């Protein structure tokens, strides 16, 4: 008796996982761009260190530490570890003072550029996932 597969579910599953991984990675870089743009929109750029220190970590790569040298007393926070799977990606702040500009202090108002950037990236991810959904429906007919 020969061994044969009954269907292509394993290949379909892998293709779906690959597509989702691509969407996640693209979304992470989109979010990085949105956050950096928002930092600029809110006129929070002086040396550019905080803006350029926003980075992405995926299962395949990291853009940590590719920005300019930190000014004066500022420093680069330790790099966060990468995700354990390819459908997860992280967008992180490298500059030590990002939290103060984003969340506010007793003298600085909260600017929330991280949350704004995340919200802007969410729509793109939803659209890309919906596109995958549509393609699967079309393939099923």
């Amino acid at each position, binding site marked *: 008796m020969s061994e044969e597969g009954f269907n292509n579910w394993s290949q379909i599953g892998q293709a779906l996982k690959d597509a989702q991984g691509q969407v996640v990675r693209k979304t992470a870089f989109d979010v990085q761009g949105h956050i950096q743009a928002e930092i600029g929109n809110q006129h929070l750029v002086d040396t550019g260190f905080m803006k350029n220190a926003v980075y992405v970590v995926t299962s395949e790569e990291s853009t940590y530490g590719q920005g300019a040298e930190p000014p004066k007393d500022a420093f680069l926070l330790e790099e966060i570890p990468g995700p354990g799977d390819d459908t997860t990606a992280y967008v992180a702040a490298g500059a030590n003072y990002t939290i103060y500009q984003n969340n*506010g*202090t007793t003298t600085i108002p909260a600017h929330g550029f991280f*949350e*704004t950037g995340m*919200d802007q990236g969410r729509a793109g991810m939803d659209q890309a996932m919906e596109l995958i959904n549509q393609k699967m429906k079309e393939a099923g007919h």
Partner: protein
Amino acid sequence: MAIAYVVATCKADTPLMAMASGVYEGNAPIGTAFPYVLVAAPSPGVDSLSGNRVRLMTRVRLQIKAVGYIDQGAYANLTIIANRIDALFGNQKNPATGILCCYREQEIKYPDPKLVSGRQVQHKGGLYDFELASTLGG
């Protein structure tokens, strides 16, 4: 609208106001006594639209936190205020006011970068998501 709701709810809450010196939007005036409650809308709201582009609801994220000293036993008070904030907004539905629901999306806790009067100040609270009826606007 969501900020006004939060500020009014905080100010009307006797346990919270017994601990905090006041409730402020954005930033507290210089010299405000610690601890106080700070409410900020750091990012604009996001609308949910129907297929024909009618606004169904708006999601607004607010930062609601206690700000105060953490030394000389003051941290316990800060925690009580943060917990009270969470009791008020951590998991609520109030459709009569147009607040469809609110919940904490993320906890926040970090020290202020500068000492105030030689003492360490901490920010403790959370990012709260509010889902608002379309009639409220944002």
